[in-house]
């Protein structure tokens, strides 16, 4: 019932982030990502944000040039998944400060960390934007301190 996968794909079909919450062989994953992104990219505007793909309901939303895509079970709540996606984007936006696709490209690991804070094992883990941002800030701080100690500066 939880989220099966989340991925971000650009309008050109380039993957920007993939996270799987179910176990599948690598090949299978790649196939699904490919098929679903084709489906999503082929959608025209003003259609609904849900597509049925095999036994999965695909919930997607477009932000600027980036599509945020999540796969959920057929009987799951599509609207709340859309909310989760939106929440994720909001947090990213706060974290990076006016996030754009390039942020996600060059700091994809940070995006992963944010996602991990919010969604774990396919379930929404933390719905509070504040908490997520606080935790992220703490972790970044730890990292920065360490690097400063070793004289490496802020390496990202």
């Amino acid at each position, binding site marked *: *019932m*939880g989220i099966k996968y989340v991925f971000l794909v650009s309008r050109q079909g380039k*993957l920007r*982030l*993939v*996270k799987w919450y179910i*176990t599948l062989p*690598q090949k299978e994953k*790649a196939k699904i990502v490919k098929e679903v992104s084709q489906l999503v990219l082929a959608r*025209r505007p*003003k*259609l*609904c*944000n*849900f*597509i*049925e793909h095999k036994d999965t309901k695909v919930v997607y939303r477009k932000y600027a040039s980036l599509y945020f895509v999540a796969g959920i079970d057929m009987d799951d*709540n*599509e*609207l*709340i998944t*859309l*909310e989760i996606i939106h929440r994720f984007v909001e947090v990213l936006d706060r974290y990076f400060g006016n996030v754009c696709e390039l942020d996600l*490209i*060059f700091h*994809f*690991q940070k995006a*992963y*960390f944010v996602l*991990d804070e919010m969604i*774990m*094992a396919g*379930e*929404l*883990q*933390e*719905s*509070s934007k504040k*908490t997520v941002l606080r*935790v992220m800030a703490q*972790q970044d701080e*730890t*990292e920065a301190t*360490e*690097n400063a100690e*070793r004289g*490496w*500066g*802020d*390496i*990202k």
Partner: protein
Amino acid sequence: MNPLFFSPPHSPGILASPTSFRLRMFEKSLTDLIQGLRANKRNESEYISKSLEEIQNESAAIDKLNYLHMLGYDMNWANFNVVEVMSSAKFSEKRAGYLAASQSFNQDTDVLMLATNLIRKDLASTNFMEIATAELAMDLFDDVLAILGHSRPYIRKKAIACLYKMTLKHPEGLHDFVPQLKERLDDPDPSVVSSAVSVICELAHTNPRNYLPLAPKLYHLLNSSNNNWMLIKIVKLFASLTPIEPRLAKKLHGPLSSLICTTTAMSLLYECINTAVVGDIISVPLPVTDSIGREIDFAELCAHKLEVFYDSSDHNLRYVGLVTLAELQVRRPDLVVNQYETILRCLDDPDMGIRMRALQVISGMATRRNLSQIVKRLMSQLILSNTIALKPGNTEGGPDEDELESTPLIDPSGVSLVSAKGSFTTPKKAASSSEPNAADNPEYRLAAVEAIIDMCSRQSYANMTNFEWYVAVLVDLVYIAGVDVGQLLSQRILDVTVRVRQVREYSVRMMRQLLSDVRLTDFVSGESPHAAVLSTAAYILGEYCTLVPASCDDIGLLLFPCLRQLTSDQQAAFVLAAMKVYTNWLQDVSGYWNDEVWELVRSTNTTTMDSITSLFLGQEGDDLDVVVAELPLQVEGLLRSFIEITKAVSVATSNMSASEPPVCRELHSLFTMYELNPVSAAAQGKVPVPDGLDLDSWIGDEIPDTSLRVLPPPPPPRQTRAPAQRNYASKDHKANRKDQPLGMLPDVDSIPVMQLDLGDLATARPKPRKSDKPKKKKKSKSSKRHKKPTPEPSPPMVPVDIVGDEDMPDIPTKPLNDTPAQQPGSISGDTDNAGAEQPASPPQQH
């Protein structure tokens, strides 16, 4: 950003050392890699293989690997390095390492053992991963369980999610986990509670019974919480609990209805309504007070609130609204009926998903009143979306006339037939010029056709008021479906024609028109979607040819030039139909025998023989027996009979006689000795096997070769015809079989089954109805096997394909008797046209 802050000289020799590996991690920074990747858009794979090499050989940052992994490149070779990084004392490196591990490790990863120990060590600190494998779960379970009581909520909530994944792989752990989870429901930190609820929701989905004891606590949360995220999960959770504990439905009635009335969050509203409908809480007979204080039925409240969804301008809401409406319809169809207009609007939605859902709902809504309107709507969608819409002239003046007016149909007059042919064979191309239309989607078209047929034929045509209209619709669908539904359509056409006596005459005329449409018959082959329809048409024309004025032109229609392209079963259907039509015509003209008729019979006979010869026998002068014996088995026997008939007729008419030759008058009675009636598929089982008949014993000599056993039995004419005909057919049959190298078919006439068919059964059971039935059964069975089209080449002999008789009554009286009574009282506007239509259709007079 300082990528090259620390870069030791390149020395591959010390790669194995963890220290050097870590030291050189940042030699070429992640940014460089990504930038390089972007700079090399053209030859990305080249760049990546180069970089991979670099990473392998000189320096590696786990993040780089992560990035490449995301792009789909294998990074298993670096697993060991990942573990190394995970074990780093630095938080930043550890973080990267864990990310890499959670992304790329799987059950078969070889370094898992290392990872397990490492994770155990790290659990004392803050971070852990969420990949779970059986061993990992087993090894780590206790450790994670221990930190579930950790002082910091941040850790507790992560531990809960982690344990959930672990129990999936290590179910024994549930035993310890569930009590802990229960405690977590009382956790002071809301996100921990929410996490616990989510996990319970997941677990309860697979095995609800174990979580019933938690219901009171959850119920309390449902009433007290105002966290919508969690409420949705709780509502969902109750949706899985209610089926096993019906008393819960009553309990939930209150909170759910108040949530539905008060919440402003659409997602929560949706979840509540969905749960109420799916969990059947709407059937709890308690009144609800709605927002303005009226008392209404809970189900009505849900239906009322649902309107907001599917009436909304937001596509997403429309979609989920229709999904739930379909569920509601299953339980309370009465509440959905009022929404007819709205749903009809949704049918034209540009979104496929919404359309499909609307289609599902609308087909459930069909009643006698609105059936024709809905079908009309769907048909016009099918027509408008693609320009193939060519249309035979048959429905002009037909019951669905008004539908045709609104559609750009190609004029069915002779001129446009030729031009239409091109677009007919390439329907998709023609349609693609316009902007993409959901109705062009083959999936949707198929669903629409199926919905139409389902609505019309549901419950033995319960919704049907005008059968001629239905036949016209089916015939139209042959033209406009645009997807391969030939098999389905032919089944339905046959079904309605056989079961509804009143429509047969009309149906025969329609079938004749189908067969005379060169757009269908040209270039047809066994695989083409129209082949099935055409052979069904042939069967109907042959079987019921007595209902329309006889015409010798029909013979030509049936022996059309592309006949040999069809499958052998389909060919057999045409040959048999041609035989019936021919003999019927002979009988007809016998009634007014004179010189002209004599001439005509002679010439027609010659033409028919010529058609047979050119179609089946190839060169003149070939040995007829040899050629015929090479034909498919189903066709062979029929063709022999046909040839004999034409020979007999030509002998009988060689000299002009004052009165008609008896052979012309009597031949058709071979086919009309008794009428075929539809029987249920199960009817065969009700017929007791006659004494002394062993169905398992071999007929004749045993056939050694197994592959021959699946051959169909000898063709039906010999089996089911009157004795005169049988002898007639079998004489030449015997003669021919002698020459056959295989000699595999037993001598049909000596088979005892034959006598049972006609005589023994009737005498064995004195009750007239019962003795009637097996006879009909046998006849319809055997004749259909050959006359009726079957898609599979040479079907095995056992299963009989009496089409569409799954829901057929043993005695087909009901639809028949109903029909005349229905028509006068019908509300449908089509009925009026039906009356006008019948005389309008010109009978094909010879």
